[in-house]
């Protein structure tokens, strides 16, 4: 549905987006990660046709967004950063406005309005003017606007920004449900969202893609992935160090595999060692790796890295 090829955006001498390529198919939810200023919003603005790319192409549903912007835009629902909306309008007025611009009228418009109001829980504020709403409601109003024409492609810039934990949870579930038959791209700073909503994640840094894979694949890039944490009476770092590098934690030991290829057998080896010395095990975990460690390692500037 979305095909991005060697996308570049320069602001003066600065290349905010520097040669990004990826595709998103129907049924995929792509999480777009990266530090502030990495080029996430700029990329999304180019996908939605708000900014023309300096170089490269974006096509949505087969339409080039620069060559044929209107058919491409009809396929897209967009939740911009900060969820902008017209403060002087009521929620109902705003959604009707969006529906009319999307070419919905009469019964179709009423049906669409009803659907998104239910989906985004806006029933109670329908006749309130937007500037009197709390941030969470404003956000959902703008989200409802993006969903009103049931788009095939959904682009969301930080959809959970400024929501409380319950609302975050709702929005993530919504994204996951919608993702079954749409192509979705959303950006976020919150790594757990990648786990709970995405089928794939891309990490970008200074305008370039630095990682691209399923959440599992990304996590496997973590140094921690495959390590075994053991809490057992009698255990000593000396004995464990036969298996690999040992790190002392608060009352426990973490063993890192000597190389990643041996990681799958590590737990078994630890168990054998435990049995051999008769240690009393209180807890033992195989680490899956942490996304935020991966994120930090690949997006920190080289000078900050240890």
């Amino acid at each position, binding site marked *: 549905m979305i095909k991005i090829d060697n996308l570049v*955006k*320069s*602001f003066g001498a600065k290349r905010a987006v520097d040669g990004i390529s990826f595709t998103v198919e129907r049924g995929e939810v792509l999480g777009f990660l990266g530090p502030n200023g990495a080029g996430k919003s700029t990329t999304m*603005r180019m996908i*939605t*046709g*708000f*900014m*023309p790319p300096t170089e490269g192409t974006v096509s949505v549903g087969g339409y080039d967004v620069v060559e044929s*912007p*209107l*058919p491409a*835009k*009809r396929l*897209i629902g*967009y939740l*911009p*950063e*900060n969820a*902008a*909306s*017209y*403060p*002087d*309008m009521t929620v109902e*007025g705003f959604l009707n*406005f*969006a529906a*009319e*611009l*999307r*070419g919905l009228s009469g019964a179709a418009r009423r049906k669409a309005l009803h659907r998104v109001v239910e989906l985004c829980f806006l029933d109670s504020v329908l006749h309130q003017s937007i500037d009197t709403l709390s941030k969470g409601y404003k956000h959902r109003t*703008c989200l409802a*606007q993006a969903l009103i024409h049931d788009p095939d492609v959904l682009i969301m810039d930080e959809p959970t920004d400024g929501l409380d934990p319950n609302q975050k949870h709702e929005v993530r579930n919504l994204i996951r449900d919608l993702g079954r038959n749409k192509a979705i791209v959303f950006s976020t700073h919150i790594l757990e969202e990648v786990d709970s909503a995405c089928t794939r994640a891309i990490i970008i840094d200074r305008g370039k893609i630095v990682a691209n894979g399923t959440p599992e694949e990304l996590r496997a890039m973590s140094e921690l992935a495959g390590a075994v944490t053991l809490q057992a009476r009698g255990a000593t770092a000396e004995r464990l160090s036969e298996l690999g590098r040992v790190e002392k934690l608060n009352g426990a030991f973490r063993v890192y595999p000597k190389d990643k290829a041996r990681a799958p057998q590590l737990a078994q080896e630890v168990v054998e060692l435990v049995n051999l010395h008769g240690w009393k095990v209180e807890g033992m975990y195989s680490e899956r790796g942490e996304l935020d460690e991966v994120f930090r390692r690949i997006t920190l500037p080289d000078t900050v890295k240890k």
Partner: protein
Amino acid sequence: MRIVLTIVKRELASYFNSPVAYVFLVIFLLLTGFFTFTAGSFFERGEASLAAFFGWHPWLYLVLVPAVGMRLWAEERRSGTLELLLTMPVAPWQAIVAKFLASWIFIGVALALTFPAIITVNILGDPDNGMIVAGYLGSFFLAGAYLAISCMTSAMTRNQVVAFILSVVLCLFLILAGFNPVTDLLTRWANPAVVDTVAAFSVVTHYDGFQRGVIDLRDLAFFLSVIGFALFATGVIIRGHRAG
């Protein structure tokens, strides 16, 4: 066309939902009243015409029209709704024309509310109503020209005050180019062809025709081309922002 209508409707609703619109209407009507009857010495003239009323419009609009137009794009940019609007299946020209039309209609409403002036002059005497119609038409187009310029300056900045000042300066230039004290000054050292050319750019030159009851196609063409040019420039400026 439906898209344009939808946006016009939204813009108009947003004018009339805010108290600013009513404040504007009241100030507009008070000022036209003051200029017509006090500064324009409507009664002392002893003639049944609205010359005193229309004569002040270029100056009155100089301050009031930019006040209507300044928010058009500056506000959209500041609040981020520009991104929303332009990522809808809306061509930029549709948005530009629609927003311009909406505020022009708003000023048209303000102008229409001056109807008591027509009634007054008809009760007091026997005016040439054709001339009054031409006067209103000229006034409406004059407001349109100022408004298109405000639209352009509004697209240049996200600060409404800056947009206001810029458009006052530009509109002032359009008045002064044909303002008698200025043209007199120019004739002292420039040859008449140059003076006429400069004066031809002035709204006053073209506005005066309407006040004499003459609807000249050339005058209409002037106002329409100022509007067309300014709206085109608005499109270029907005595209410039998006290109970054």
